[in-house]
């Protein structure tokens, strides 16, 4: 197992290195001055010379890359070209907000997707399977930005059940400490925390459900395909021959084996989730990374784009590698395959 972990982590390091290289070279690809693109300090700014030297632009490219890495680790991520705010400060508030939404959506997707997929596979080609298969295909085909608008119109405007923007009613005096609203409420010293939690819950429920749709139906599809495959496997018959009941066969053998490829696909579902979080945050005015990134691309705010993409890509890669590790940890067969290579 430790071999697998070391191998996967080194893989992660290599990919992160590649991504940082990509992010670094983006300063050159963007139009304009690379120093400004990397740091957000305009060329006529008094601090320009200082930054120019600090980023190693007076030296060769390798030195520049090392300086870039150093400033990354020092938390000197430059400033936004639009409002001169420190990218690191802004990011450390926005990333938790995004993660909060992402984690909740992923949890919803995980609670609904795989069980539905397994039910569909259990009743393969029966009406219940066909209904689930169709819903999952339809859900997979609904553009998230359309779904978000339609749900807003129905649930917020017509039914008036939930609010439509932000993390919480701003009248609650919750200072942004971590950026994640639920954590912030817990940390804050306001009275009536429970009411604040309820308010935040109402704010997050709609975007989270909208966001969960795509990964959820994706997981339904993965799980269904995998479970159909597994249920045709001989060991299921073997388990029946051992005298196990259907429930025992399903829960002890079929479902764990079904989840083996699905664990791997978690990272795919997560990628889809991250793609959609960009759009969902814009629509629900969620003060997260996606909202910020989309606007900075629109405004060509290069330091923000550069670092925002770096962070998102790193998160996806990390989740991917951890899905691999999780799979290897849970499934000896996979471990075997990793060893064999």
């Amino acid at each position, binding site marked *: 197992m430790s071999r697998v972990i070391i191998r996967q982590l080194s893989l992660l390091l290599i990919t992160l290195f590649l991504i940082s290289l990509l992010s670094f070279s983006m300063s050159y690809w963007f139009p304009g001055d690379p120093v400004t693109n990397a740091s957000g300090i305009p060329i006529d700014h008094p601090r320009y010379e200082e930054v120019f030297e600090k980023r190693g632009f007076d030296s060769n490219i390798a030195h520049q890359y090392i300086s870039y890495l150093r400033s990354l680790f020092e938390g000197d991520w430059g400033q936004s070209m639009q*409002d001169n705010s420190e990218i690191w400060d802004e990011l450390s508030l926005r990333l938790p907000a995004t993660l909060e939404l992402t984690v909740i959506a992923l949890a919803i997707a995980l609670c609904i997707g795989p069980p539905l997929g397994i039910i569909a596979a259990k009743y393969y080609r029966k009406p219940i399977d066909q209904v689930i298969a169709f819903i999952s295909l339809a859900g997979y085909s609904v553009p998230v930005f359309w779904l978000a608008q339609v749900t807003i119109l129905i649930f917020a405007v017509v039914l008036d059940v939930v609010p439509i923007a932000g993390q919480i009613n701003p009248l609650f*005096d919750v200072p942004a400490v971590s950026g994640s609203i639920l954590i912030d409420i817990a940390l804050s010293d306001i009275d009536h925390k429970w009411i604040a939690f309820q308010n935040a819950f109402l704010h997050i429920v709609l975007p989270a459900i909208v966001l969960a749709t795509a990964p959820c139906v994706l997981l339904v599809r993965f799980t269904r395909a995998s479970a159909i495959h597994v249920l045709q496997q001989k060991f299921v018959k073997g388990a029946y021959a051992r005298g196990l009941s259907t429930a025992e066969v399903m829960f002890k053998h079929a479902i764990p084996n079904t989840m083996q490829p699905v664990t791997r696909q978690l990272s795919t579902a997560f990628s889809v989730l991250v793609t959609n979080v960009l759009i969902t945050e814009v629509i629900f005015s969620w003060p997260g990374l996606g909202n910020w990134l989309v606007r900075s691309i629109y405004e060509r705010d290069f330091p923000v784009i550069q670092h925002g993409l770096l962070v998102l890509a790193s998160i996806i890669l990390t989740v991917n590698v951890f899905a691999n590790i999780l799979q290897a940890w849970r499934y000896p067969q996979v471990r075997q395959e990793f060893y064999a290579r």
Partner: protein
Amino acid sequence: MTTKHFLCSVSLIVVGLVTGCNRALPPEAEGVLYCAEGNPEAFNPQLVTSGTTLDMTSSQLFDRLIEYNESSREFESSLAEHWSVSEDNLRYRFKLREDVPFHSTDFFHPTRNLNAQDVVFTFNRWLKPEHPYHEISGGQYPFFTATRLDQLIREVSATSSHEVEITLREPDSSLLSILASSFAVIMSAEYGQQLLNQGEPQQFDLEPIGTGPFKFSHFRKDVALNYVRHDEYWKGPAASENLVFRIAPNDHKRMLMLLTQDCDISPYPPARDIAWLDEREDIHLQTSMSPNTAFWAFNTDKAPFNDIKVRQALAHAIDRDALISAVYFDHAVRADSILPNTSWAHSPTPEAFRYDPQRARELLDEAGYGSGFTMDVWALPVQRAYNPNARLMAELIQSNLNDIGVNVNIVSYEWSSFRRSLAEGAHDSVLIGWSADHADPDNFFRPLLTCAAKASGNNRAMWCNEIFDNLVTNAIRSIDRPTRESFYHQAQDILAQEVPVVPLAHSIRFQASRDYIQGLQPPAYGGINLRSVSKVAEIERGEP
């Protein structure tokens, strides 16, 4: 069986959570939610010209020396109890109130009330380059540069602890109007000194201290700006405990937020929604004829817009009546001059901007652009009183110009970067406008179209014409209204001839609020004042 029980209890919990969560607020979170169109650029009205920032800062945080009373059409005392003007119209004396406390917050505890030092400190900031705060936050004071007030004022001095004297270099009929505008707010010299001692002068414009009805609490970019009541406010405390500006750049979103009670007040509701919003019981719609003009400015520094004929051709190419019906839904009147029709100096020149594609084509031919060209139209990304939907307007103009062989790209950025790029003159042409800051007609000429305005980055046409400059300068130096009027008429004729800007519409300003909001006044000039606004108590919100 157990599975069934489990599912039952889970669904019960979920249902309970959703239904149990109503949106009622605990008592300490009572307050008014105002949906603003964008982030404030700074918490200092001196630094900005955008109405969004003015709405969010000026009247909420600060006070001015004097105020302009819309109904009586006269100036009223504010921080200055009374004032006097010398015989030669060059010296103005203001006697200050003695009982005006500054905000006391986590970051600043005032030791004294407002006095003459504060006024001198505030005026000298933009007046004197050697002032320690002059260069902080960019060193640009667009309104004062554009009105040439920085050239006009010789000195601001404290004649006693509570008396200030402003000395002018030459007489100026618009001074009181300017001092009553939302930009001329008074700040704390003591706070400035404290920050200088701490070595953090940039905080001055980020965590403001004023004398106004609300105190700065905290601001999160793109989310919300929170104010709390200033209990010792000299006019008496504000009606509402909390005041929150939610940042919601999208007008449709703001309208929906008003419907879902995510906002209590929404300025500039979309024109297309006015009609049915007005019919709703729970929405209160207010209008005001605040003087404003939407216009289309050409960057006269750039070819081909440096050619008068091209500008005239473009002016004739667009159908402004169609724009008004499609964009404003007829909640506006066609503008035939940059000066609003409510002003006494108004002199319309409809002929110059008549819709005549044939004439436009001829003019383009004469200018040598018969085969057409491609240009950018920048559409302002936010809704302003003068233009509810610049993007839609740009699309209509696009199709109009297509008819005379001009291709149009529509360009739009986020508001603050949009304004910065405009100031740099990166645009070909821009759809923008102006809302009056004060009652004087000068407000529509000097801040917008003079060479000084070009220098301050406020002249969207990048236009500089000496004759025009002389006319408006002469107008401001005379006290006599008929003389001024004739100067202004000549100035408007030059504009009709030169066409640096095409005036489009004077619109009606709308403001929508929930029915449980009371004390809301439609604003006349400059920023809105929310001091007397509060929620009606004892109304069960959201319940029929």
